[in-house]
């Protein structure tokens, strides 16, 4: 697609990251590991049907489980070896499928596709191939962020390169030497929909184009979470038909291209790793599904630290002994809250992270060390409007929250509940410590459940 007109999307609202421990641009190879795992319970809205059992031998790319609702949707093994353990969480939710790796790993072979064959392939067989090859879970659908519905033809698919969250992998690093696969992946995506929008996030520093600029269609400027496809869509959409667009991360497009071109399930991954207490923060060249502490064997792994996967504002808490969800690409180690603070609320607060201007840390833009503390107790909403002034998609969280609270789901939908990009900023800024984003996300999930029961 040469010579595409590039559109600049400037997003005003959001939050400028001021957190210490940003991963450097250095790439390190993570040490070899003995076990990898697939983590089904982190997949949204999936009911897995297990197709293997303990003791089975699997190859890289063998089917581990499928979705009960869409049996075509397969989830493949990120390693070759023997299944050493299958663990279940509360209510028998399939939690982890752990594979003990062989010393020589073998790939399952899939059909390769050439450049010219890709031009001719129909949409249906291409989707079938991606689903059988375990690539489909990388393609997600707005607004519920579930795995894309293959029977639906969206208006566009949004590819995001780079993130406004500096703790996510940099696109410059994962694109290095992979541009061919990326372009092949884009070509495959363009067989699925009429429009493929490639959004590159630009912060002020990286003004120059080190990557073939004519393939990028949208240049995104703004604070976190400007790079989120939901935010870009909200600021560019012209009709309600676009609400169910698909999206995929740039690194996953490389995977998709690599899978189609080589016929092997790609398991290599660039993961951004951050640990503010050491200077180990960097990008790690690793593989899918490794144990978190395998990323940083020297990191402290006890109750004084918290391991966060997928970004500190919208990810989930994990532990060093847990495995990394193959779809996630960012790991952060942060301080666990430890001791109450004497007269915390009257201190000048030179080192207190805050979006408000009530602490003296506001005068400096230096990054600050964070911990997992709430910094206060929960209180009733006082309608201060901090959430509404930061929400990147203008949903006025305090009022939407109230309509959900009153069980007025229609009102909440009208306020834009489904436009919520689950960025977590409303909960972050709330001085009353109300779990706003969690509450909105829960309501979205309930609504999704209701919709899928109707269908």
């Amino acid at each position, binding site marked *: 697609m040469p010579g595409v007109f590039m559109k600049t999307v400037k997003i005003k609202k959001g939050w400028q990251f001021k957190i210490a421990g940003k991963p450097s641009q250095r790439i390190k190879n993570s040490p070899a590991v003995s076990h990898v795992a697939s983590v089904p319970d982190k997949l949204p809205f999936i009911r897995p049907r297990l197709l293997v059992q303990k003791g089975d031998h699997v190859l890289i790319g063998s089917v581990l489980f499928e979705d009960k609702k869409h049996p075509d949707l397969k989830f493949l093994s990120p390693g070759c070896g023997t299944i050493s353990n299958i663990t279940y969480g509360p209510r028998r939710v399939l939690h982890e499928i752990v594979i003990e790796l062989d010393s020589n790993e073998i790939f399952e072979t899939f059909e390769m596709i050439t450049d010219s064959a890709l031009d001719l392939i129909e949409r249906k067989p291409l989707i079938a191939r991606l689903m059988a090859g375990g690539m489909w879970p990388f393609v997600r659908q707005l607004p519920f962020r579930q795995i894309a519905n293959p029977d639906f033809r969206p208006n566009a698919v949004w590819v995001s390169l780079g993130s406004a969250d500096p703790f996510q992998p940099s696109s410059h690093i994962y694109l290095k030497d992979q541009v061919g696969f990326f372009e092949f992946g884009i070509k495959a995506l363009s067989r699925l929909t009429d429009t493929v929008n490639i959004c590159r996030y630009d912060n002020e520093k990286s003004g120059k184009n080190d990557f073939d600029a004519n393939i990028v269609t949208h240049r995104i400027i703004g604070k976190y979470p400007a790079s989120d496809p939901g935010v870009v869509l909200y600021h560019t959409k012209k009709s309600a038909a676009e*609400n169910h667009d698909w999206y995929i991360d740039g690194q996953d497009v490389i995977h998709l291209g690599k899978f189609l071109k080589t016929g092997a399930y790609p398991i290599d991954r660039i993961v951004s790793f951050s640990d503010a207490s050491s200077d180990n923060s960097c990008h790690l060249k690793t593989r899918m599904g490794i144990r978190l502490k395998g990323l940083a064997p020297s990191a402290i792994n006890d109750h004084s630290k918290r391991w966060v996967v997928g970004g500190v504002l919208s990810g989930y808490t994990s532990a060093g002994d847990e495995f990394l969800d193959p779809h996630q690409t960012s790991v952060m180690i942060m301080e666990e809250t430890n001791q109450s603070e004497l007269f915390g609320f009257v201190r000048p607060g030179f080192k207190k992270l805050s979006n408000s201007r009530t602490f003296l840390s506001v005068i400096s833009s230096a990054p600050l060390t964070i911990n997992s503390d709430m910094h206060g107790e929960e209180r009733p909403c006082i*309608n201060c409007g901090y959430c509404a002034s930061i929400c990147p998609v203008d949903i*006025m969280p305090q009022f939407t929250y109230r309509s959900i609270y009153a069980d007025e789901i229609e009102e909440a939908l009208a306020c834009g509940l489904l436009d919520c990009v689950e960025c977590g900023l409303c909960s972050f800024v709330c*001085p009353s410590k109300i779990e706003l984003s969690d509450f909105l996300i829960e309501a979205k999930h309930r609504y999704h459940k209701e919709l899928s029961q109707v269908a």
Partner: protein
Amino acid sequence: MLNLFEKNLRRFFEKNSIHFTEGGRFYKLRPLFEALETICFTPAIPARRPPFVRDGIDLKRFMSIVLLALMPPLFWGIYNTGYQSLAASGKDLIFPNIIISGLLTVMPLIIVSYAAGFFWEILFAVIRKHPISEGFLVTGLLFPMTLPPSVPLWQVAVGISFGVVIGKEVFGGTGRNIFNPALTARAFLFFAYPARMSGDRVWVAVSDTASSAISAVSGATPLSMSTLAPPFNTIESMLQSAGFTLSTLFVGNYPGSVGGTSALCCLIGALILIITGVASYRIIIGGVAGLLISSFLFNIVSTVPLNAWTDINPLYHLAAGGFAFGIVYMATDPVSAPGTQTSKWVYGFFIGMLTVLIRIFNPAYPEGVMMAILFMNLFAPLFDFIEIRMHVSKRIPNV
């Protein structure tokens, strides 16, 4: 030193918390214990749900900034109360005496207000088993600052009780009240005990015997001069001859309510609130604009003055009386103000406009801003409703 203090304080709370847990002797008073403990120590509560990092601000910080912004008018109020009181009694105006006299008048008001208010707050917190909210820290100080210094202490207690119970707790407590509790309390006193809340006699704190002895000293406030006395052609000249020049009114060196006389101090407070982002600049600027524009329009329109105040320079409206205090500290209370951005402009503007209307058309209520804010509190939910409707109609639907 501080470490030792911290260690002992920590030990004190740890040792005594047993009495306030379930089955302990004072379990019912747990909210009080928790309030004291969390004032001393911001508790370490881990974030269980994403985001795992939270903003350093909490309601305690939020309210302390308001208290900080209240300090300039409070200090000025103490000074001015003492000054007016000594001046009226004909005593020496020495600075330490002024401060002592001011403190002796003002501190009892504040202490009674906090004591009576916290009694109700604790009672409701205990019965309804919720933590004591920080909002009262502000209400308890705002209320005495709106009162005439001569008000009897039992009226302070009655007023704040009404404000807390009827103004706030019956609606469900902090965050759910319709009216600003401090203003509700003041309005209650204003209508229940008008003799001690308005008129020329109440604005200077002097003992009754002294005030009858010095009847020559007029305690009239600028706003109560509503009729033109014959030698003067304009209200400005009349005010000036009574000592109320624009600069006096701005600085606030005249008899009036404890904290409300100085527009200058309120301006400092407004700057603190706006710079820290705790109060909405939209409400404050909207209110000032509403006041200036509507009083200016009255200047132009009125050919036959309805009242001496129709023709006055709009700046007098801004500097005189409690408008500055009201618009900065009362109207910006986020709970009773609208939560949407454009509505805040409209809300502020109407408060300014209504203040002028009340001052001009209803000389019985010389202080218009109290009524104006309470009246607009009533409309805040409607403003929000309209703005949300307009906002929703602009969105591309997503269902």
